[in-house]
């Protein structure tokens, strides 16, 4: 099942939790940008970036292994790069025992580099969502000049996300309850099953459209004038500025370390 609608926020009062969400977003983006700019095989930089991730995990109070444990989500995609050790030309470092495929040195370096960068980037994003509530995150995106219409749509979507997910699950439970079959009877063909699922989606869609009309009516009834307003407001404290400065310097340092080493 593709429904992984679980709120990723972990309540807490750590330093990372109390940081201005704008600072957290900027630091995570800088971190991932730094990883993107680090060339393949920059092992010293990667190690330093991993150190930064561990430090951030320590500041989050969620435990050092928290982000590592949640970083499995990117694993399936790493397959997309799995052919690199065999396709990038270069000196052969080893040959696969059974298949007899030659693994090239530069290809292996590039593949491992991509895997490490992805693994580290996911950890940073995991820590961001684990220490920041979604409304705070949205406020910060708006404050960082993401178009307000987009931010409002995301906020509204978030309110109905879990409702819509539950509706889909109820509908699937109903399908299962009614889909009786005689033992040994042939299953209906795939195209028929696909059509049934499609009709379920169609009726979910109709309910969504009708709900959006009701929601719009309710918003108008409460004085909606096209503007979204929020009570959330953060002010940059001295600590926020310090964290921002230190984070940017450290990320640049991690990137530069490879040149020094």
């Amino acid at each position: 099942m593709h429904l992984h609608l679980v709120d990723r926020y972990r309540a807490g009062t750590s330093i990372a939790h109390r940081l201005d969400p704008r600072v957290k977003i900027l630091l995570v983006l800088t971190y991932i940008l730094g990883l993107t700019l680090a060339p393949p095989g920059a092992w010293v930089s990667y190690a330093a970036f991993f150190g930064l991730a561990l430090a951030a995990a320590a500041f989050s109070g969620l435990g050092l292994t928290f982000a590592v444990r949640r970083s499995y989500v990117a694993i399936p995609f790493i397959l997309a790069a799995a052919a690199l050790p065999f396709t990038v030309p270069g000196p052969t470092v080893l040959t696969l025992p059974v298949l007899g495929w030659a693994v090239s040195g530069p290809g292996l370096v590039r593949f491992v580099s991509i895997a490490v960068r992805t693994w580290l980037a996911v950890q940073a994003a995991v820590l961001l969502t684990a220490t920041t509530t979604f409304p705070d995150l949205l406020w910060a995106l708006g404050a960082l000049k993401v178009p307000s219409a987009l931010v409002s749509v995301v906020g509204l979507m978030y309110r109905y996300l879990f409702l819509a997910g539950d509706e889909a699950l109820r509908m699937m439970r109903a399908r299962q309850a009614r889909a009786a079959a005689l033992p040994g009877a042939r299953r209906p063909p795939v195209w028929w099953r696909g059509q049934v699922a499609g009709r379920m989606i169609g009726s979910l869609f109709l309910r969504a459209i009708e709900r959006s009309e009701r929601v719009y009516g309710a918003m108008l009834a409460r004085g909606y004038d096209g503007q979204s307003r929020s009570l959330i407001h953060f002010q940059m404290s001295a600590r926020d500025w310090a964290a921002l400065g230190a984070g940017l310097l450290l990320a640049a340092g991690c990137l530069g370390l490879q040149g020094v080493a």
Partner: protein
Amino acid sequence: MMTAPAPLHIPDGFLSPAVAALGWMLAIIFVSLGIRHTGRQLGDRMIPMMGVLAAFIFAAQAVNFPVAAGTSGHMIGAALAAIVLGPWASLLVLTVVVGTQALLFQDGGLIALGSNIVNMGALAAFSGYAAYRAVVRLAGDHRAARLGGAFAAAWVSVEAGAIATSIELALSGTTDINLALPAMASVHALIGIGEGLLTAGALTILMASRPEVLLHAEHAPGRRQAVFALGGLALVLFLALAAPLASVSPDGLMAVARDQGFDGVTRALWSGPAANYLMPGVDDPAWSTIAAVAIGSLVVFGVAIGVGRLSRRSRATG
């Protein structure tokens, strides 16, 4: 068709800085155009409608159906959104979905988000919309043509996203185009069939109970601009593939060339006549895949239009 989402959400670390920057640039242009067109289309209604429908896309992706041997298919939803909402509004809905998947669920990267918005938002929405409208226009506006159009739109939108993803990965030196493009295109040709069944099934319900909902998209503002944008994106991808980086990750090949003392020869080849790269022959897997996908799209279109015409004729005579 697998339970796991097909690998289209590119994570961070897979794209080169240049490709990621290009993706963000295009995404910003498309999203700001999308906000403008959708604001004209829906007015104050835009925010609640887009929000609830984005939540719907998440929910629809949870509805699965058993395919075979323990695997199940589920919907991606771009084509359905494009058919019902029009190109720009569905681009916005999909941008919100893809952005939330990246921000909240780490499904796809943040630096890679621009490219993901282009692949799964812009390309999928525009190609799905264009395919649906083309079939309905050529086969006549009635039930069978609409269902055929929905199937074709879903298939084309899935293939377009998959091809764009593999070209971007190859440009970044993350994968070999001659492996990635055929693999992605063939896997997604199957996923596209599932998407087509689901989209057509969803459309039968919409046509039966609320046909007026389908009228939105027919008069959506910016329709022509969406088709131009689609053409532009296709041209960019074509040029990227036709550029010298097509067959192997470039720096790797250049390095080998230097090692072997072929540098001058390769340089001459790189800067040589475009024919070298535009007509690499049938045995070049990336290009033959593109040809196969183009032929496949034509077949899907042809069948959809044919079914639409035939059913209208049989209704007229019978």
